[in-house]
């Protein structure tokens, strides 16, 4: 990375004011973010919130309507070719060739990137992925978990400096997900920067930093602890006879969210005083056991989501 300025060298992604709209509908609005080199950056948000669009703008697949930024020190508008050489992009939908074998897919990628010995590079990757014995199997015949491993292998094959993973674990079983995340952490330890979008809260908690995006706006970012601390949400945990309680509590002043969690109910609100006033009559009854608790990341996100809907829709 000779051409990157020294000040940017510890920042992998640095974008400001990215905006993109399709057919008059703004999908990403004035989005700014910075991702440190070597970190795992989680990108969260509901469906259609602009995560995929943002990732595509970062790797040159979409041109932003406005906004500027650099990816690995290269301008995202001008230097798309240089970015493509150094970035591995794993698409949301499996996008390798289903009618090519595992080996053939990897060799294709290796040749496109001009890796000196494509056959050897593909063989090494097959071994690293634990796919030995399946080299000649068609990619389309692999199970979901194996497809996802192959896709990760294909985008790490050209030794990128930045990985953009768009919901890589959607539809993958828990064991495969865990293996996948171990691999991501191993790659980050080698110095790779990883930007990963996900819907899963447990995955968000595996990231060094997270950002939450809804309706095209970046609503919160920081470490998981920071995001929870900044939410100013109070949460109570209720157990006992929950029959009908949720419906009764919903809509009372100060109660913004009522969500069942197994045998308990999470009741949260941003206005602590109003929330406590509303639940006071219920707390007095012995039918329920009330306990103040820390809001979960999910509580925070659901709250951000419902608030952003009020603001932007």
């Amino acid at each position: 990375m000779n051409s990157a300025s020294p000040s940017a060298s510890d920042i992998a992604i640095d974008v400001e004011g990215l905006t993109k709209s399709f057919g008059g509908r703004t999908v990403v609005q004035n989005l700014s973010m910075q991702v440190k080199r070597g970190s795992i950056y989680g990108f969260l948000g509901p469906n259609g919130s602009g995560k995929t669009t943002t990732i595509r703008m970062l790797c040159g697949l979409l041109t932003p309507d406005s906004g500027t930024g650099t990816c690995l020190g290269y301008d995202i508008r001008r230097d798309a070719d240089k970015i493509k050489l150094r970035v591995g992009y794993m698409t949301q939908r499996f996008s390798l060739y289903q009618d090519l074998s595992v080996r053939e897919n990897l060799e294709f990628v290796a040749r496109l990137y001009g890796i000196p010995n494509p056959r050897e590079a593909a063989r090494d990757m097959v071994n690293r992925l634990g796919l030995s014995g399946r080299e000649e199997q068609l990619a389309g015949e692999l199970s979901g978990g194996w497809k996802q491993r192959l896709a990760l292998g294909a985008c790490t094959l050209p030794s990128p400096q930045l990985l953009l993973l768009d919901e890589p674990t959607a539809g993958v079983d828990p064991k495969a997900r865990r293996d996948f995340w171990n691999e991501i952490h191993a790659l980050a330890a080698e110095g790779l920067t990883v930007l990963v979008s996900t819907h899963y809260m447990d995955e968000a908690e595996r990231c060094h930093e997270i950002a939450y995006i809804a309706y095209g706006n970046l609503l919160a970012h920081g470490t998981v602890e920071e995001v929870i601390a900044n939410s100013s949400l109070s949460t109570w945990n209720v157990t006992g006879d929950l029959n009908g309680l949720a419906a009764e509590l919903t809509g009372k002043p100060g109660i913004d969210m009522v969500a069942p969690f197994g045998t308990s109910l999470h009741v949260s609100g941003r206005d602590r005083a109003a929330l406590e006033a509303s639940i006071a009559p219920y707390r007095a009854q012995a039918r329920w056991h009330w306990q103040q608790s820390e809001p979960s990341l999910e509580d925070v996100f659901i709250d951000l989501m419902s608030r952003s809907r009020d603001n932007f829709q």
Partner: protein
Amino acid sequence: MSAAASSGRPREARDIFGFWRRSYAMLLKEFIQLRRDRVSFAMIVMIPVMQLLLFGYAINTTPRHLPSAVLLQEDSDLGRSILKAMENTSYFRFTREVHSVEEFDYLLQSGKVLFGVEIPRGFERAVRRGDKPALLVAADATDPVAAGSALGALGTLVQTALAHDLHAGDPPNMPFEIRTHARYNPAASSRLNIVPGLVGTILTMTMLIFTALSVTREIERGTMESLLSMPIKPVEVMFGKIVPYVLVGFIQATLIIGIGVLLFGVPILGSVLMLAALSTLFITTNLSIGYTFSTIVQNQLQAMQLSMMFFLPSILLSGFMFPFAGMPVWAQYLGEGLPLTHYIRIVRAIMLKGATISNLQYDTIALIALMLLAMTIAVTRFRRTLD
């Protein structure tokens, strides 16, 4: 779901109107989808209208005003009134006057004229002396349909032509004879004409579809997203997608020509090497056009439809089915824009007339131009982003 009101509950699948209701639901859905698919909708109108207009206006199975050359060895009143009489049959149109036999043969061989009339030196004097000299009419009979009716009209020409100049007697006492010479296909076998034409027609169909589907297939399968995120340039994608099919097309062409020669007895009078080279050029041109289509359309169905839109005029206007020279001028201009037109001339000329490259310069250059045009459009149309 809120509790379904009784009217909102699904009915038993057995009820008596069920068949009609479900058919209707399906039918309604298809109509909505059809209405949203603009291209299909356009095709519904375009294909029949285009076909009808082309058949109705452009196609003429007894073509008239066919380009002809005259080799005038003497300038006489009689010669001129014979030529005038030939033009009056409306079959012949004299476009060239040549002065040597070589030039005469060249024009016929390159397909620039379909007929050549030679009026020999001393013709008028021989007629007056009662020597019954012969007038040579050479026809390019590769297309028996185009040549046939014109040659037929020559039979009665002598009497009508000479009404003013001479007193033509009964047929046995005709003052001169017209000797017709059906070149290249003397037996007027339509097979000789059709088999070389089929080579081009089949190649157009198959080559076009191979590449027309190639880019849309990547988009529909989602592989385009991954491909675009990798460092590859539009020209590289294009070459990668065209080159394998050049080989496929070459095998196909060899197969068709081989069968034509072995089974149908079509000769290859010209150079096999040149036939192979120009066939490869034609294959590449079609692949480039197909590839261009695939960068324009949205999905594979549209790609097929656009290919059909291109294939249809190719068959009708290229001279494959109907004589090219018989079409109105506007249709001939359209035809010049189709690679098949040029290839059919090339393949017929090489196989049936033994033409050399000097006869085929124009058609070769036209094919190269069409290929480069298609490739340029394809490379500029290729979307490097998903915008």
